[in-house]
């Protein structure tokens, strides 16, 4: 079992094989595979995970932006990161449910977990979850959230589909310098685009398991009945994205995602 934040069914981390640092033992292995350097883990790093506790009461400001969520009451695993896999429950500690309604006050941020969107029976009225990453340096992200010819501002497009079961969680991970985003960066972004949909901080770039930090925009659709990953888009693919959303919200009907 590999140590994997999103895919590990449990809390334990396999110890990595210890190899002599940069010398491969077999010439044949060297010729065929090259020499991958596997360092020895520092003492204590592998043990720390056994003390993982998602109920740490350390005060909101002391928490990292993302922590593992509980699997109780959540879609059963195994969990993965590819299309068709069940996405693991992860909690983001700094999320605005509605930035504009909160007047962009960071004190109104709260913890939101992917499990909050899990709706196997349809009781919550949720059909699909859109996970969207945002970086301040990303011009195409700005175009997405600002709106264009075919689609209005992202926030408006998402809200327009709320009644039919679309939910979203946008996550900022980089500032305009490519450094981890802060809540101040989030406030600037949210106020610029007058966001009214959930917006959270992912300073640890937990979403890096699905995409790359330098490839944006990134959007991922999750079936909230099973928490399975439906599809992912890298780049400005607004038309394809909303066509698929429409397909999920109106199964069996012809798709016409763009506005008139």
């Amino acid at each position, binding site marked *: 079992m*590999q*140590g994997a*934040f*999103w*895919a590990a069914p449990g809390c334990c*981390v396999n110890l990595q094989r210890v190899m002599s640092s*940069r010398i491969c033992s077999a010439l044949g292995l060297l010729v065929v595979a*090259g*020499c*991958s*350097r*596997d*360092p020895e*883990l*520092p003492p*204590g*790093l*592998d*043990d*720390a*995970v056994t*003390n*993982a506790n998602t109920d740490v009461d350390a005060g909101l400001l002391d928490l990292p932006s993302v*922590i*593992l969520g509980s699997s109780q009451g959540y879609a059963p695993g195994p969990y993965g*990161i*590819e299309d068709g896999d069940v996405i693991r429950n992860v909690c983001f500690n700094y999320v605005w449910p509605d930035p504009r309604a909160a007047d962009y006050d960071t004190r109104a941020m709260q913890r939101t977990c992917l499990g909050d969107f899990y709706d196997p029976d349809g009781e919550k009225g949720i059909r699909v979850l859109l996970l969207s990453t945002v970086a301040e*340096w990303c*011009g*195409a992200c*700005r175009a997405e959230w600002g709106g*264009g*010819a*075919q*689609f209005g501002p992202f926030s408006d497009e998402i809200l327009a589909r709320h009644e039919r079961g679309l939910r979203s969680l946008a996550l900022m991970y*980089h500032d*305009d310098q*490519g*450094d981890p985003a802060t809540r101040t960066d989030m406030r600037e972004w949210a106020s*610029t685009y007058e966001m009214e949909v959930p917006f959270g901080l992912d300073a*640890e*770039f*937990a979403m890096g*398991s699905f995409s*790359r*930090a*330098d*490839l944006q*925009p990134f959007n991922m659709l999750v079936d909230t009945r099973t928490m399975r990953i439906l*599809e992912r*888009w*890298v*780049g*400005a*693919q607004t*038309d*394809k994205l909303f*066509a698929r959303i429409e397909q999920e919200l109106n199964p069996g009907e*012809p*798709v016409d995602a763009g506005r008139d």
Partner: protein
Amino acid sequence: MIRVRWGLAASRVPATGRLLGTTLFLLLACCGTARGQQQAPPEPGRVSGSVNNFTRAQYSVDNRNTRVGSVNSLSDDDWGLIHNRLSVQARQDAWRVGARIDGVWFYTHPSSSELALEALRLRRGDLQPPFSAQDTAYYELRQQEGARDLSTRYRSVLYPSKYYVGYEGRDFDATIGDFNAQLGRGFVLSLRRQDELQSDTTLRGARVSGTLRGRALRLRATALGGVLNPLRVDAGSGRLLSVNRGVTPGPLGALDWGMPRPGQVEGLEPAPTLAPDRLVGGQLEVQLDTVTLGVQTARVIRQPALSPDSVRSAKAIQTSSASLDVPELWRGGSLYTEAAMQQRQSAAAEPTPETGYALYAALSAQQRPWLIGVEFKHYRRFFPLLANVDAARAAEFSTLQYNAPPTTEAHWVDSEFEGHNTCVSGGRVKLDHTFGPRRSAGVWVGHYRSWAESGSNPDCRIGASNENVIWDLASSFEQTGRASAYRHSFVIGGRLDQTRHSFPDPRGGRTRLFYGETYLRYGVTQRLLGQLSLQLQGWHRRLLQAQGGSTGPSYQGDHATGVRFGQWLLALGTQYDSDPRTPDLYLNGLLQYDLDSVSNVALFAGQERGGLVCVNGVCRDYAPFEGARIDLTLQL
């Protein structure tokens, strides 16, 4: 197309150094001492051949692009490769046969554990215990990200990249295997080797051409079909394009025999990063005197998209065009025009996109000492034929495409953002004046309106809300000496790209300035004494980009100085960038010894700035490089 920082057009750090370096390299090699190997035509029946071998040994160190939390900015550090490319060709009369074997051995590279530990060290400042649960969670996140990245990178391979057998007669030729192809001026199909972009996509299949000749009439027909075959390894980044049985069903599997396969890395399920596209097409040309009428068509047949977008998600794309070429239009003039249509066939349950079209014309007229050239384009929903690659896992190949619609702009332009060239109208007028036989000066004015540059607009909806208005102006001067004793060229210009509507300015308020640039390009070649010659080459820019660029204007530049003496070449390069997101200065040097006119050994050491390199609208994003490499080029 996708890439960093600005959806399509990538980082605003054009890798002009690479283009300059390559140009300097080739020019000096060209103009230096050349003991030419003029080969006489082979005797009938005699077999002639050549063997070309290129070997590169390289080690890359930290390229100073590290970002906290970004595994990709760590995985391109501290790795090395030995890359060998062996090409063998033989010819007997009209028959020719050839093959190329590519081998890459990554003798060292980071592991996902190493990447995760380094990412953790950057976050914490050290790797001293105790470690918290958050540290462990962070380590796991980065390790998984690293494993995902390495699953398509640094995998040693040996594979037959190209092979062919062909017959080349006067009026008939046929090729089975790999071949380059261009139909028209690039709208329908353009498969050419482009060294500046490290690209050499061929069609692996069959091509037949036949010509009927009359007194003043010539008729030529071409049919081709096969599987599109890009290079599978990007030696600059170590990234791999791999296939498996799932994307090479039936006969496709035979054509992809020996090609790199995905490997399993640390528990991740191997998945392909390329789903090969198939293509059938043809061309009919009728030439009457010097006028040529052409009709060309190509159909790209696709598999389910590895990265869904407007182009890759199509089941099939049919592109056709008609062209008129009049190379001698009254005295010294010429005319070329082409009209193309493009239909994307969607998967079931998806609406059929509207048909796209493209109109292009290039006209030149000469009345000494004046020469005027006009290029015009009018494109609606006309897309680049992007290869079906997994753009998230093999981003270095995300701009791979099979056609090249003309841009009408200078070949180096890298500021056509997003889908600029898919929904655009405009053109360029160029006026040159010659002062004597070896001196000329010119100006050009380009004006364009694009509706797919400041936002995604695959349907090409025309409106003020998504319109960009672009002006591109420049003036040039060039002179050459007798017997090529010297050559001096200068271009100074600017580009202004504004939207019709205002949009939020990241620096505050609102703005309509989308992109602005002023620049200076120069090339000076000067023979000094005997075999000693000097070359200077540079490109200096002031950029301002409202979305995706640095806050405020930035300055970028490249300068290279080369000295050739006989068979020796020494070149020193400097690059700078005031963008706070990148290092300020890059230095590099090249030392080359020519064994003969085609064989040489070259040592490069230093730093190269990364970024976008574009050649006639086809672009490639390069990661920065720091390290050393030695190249050996041999031709026997």
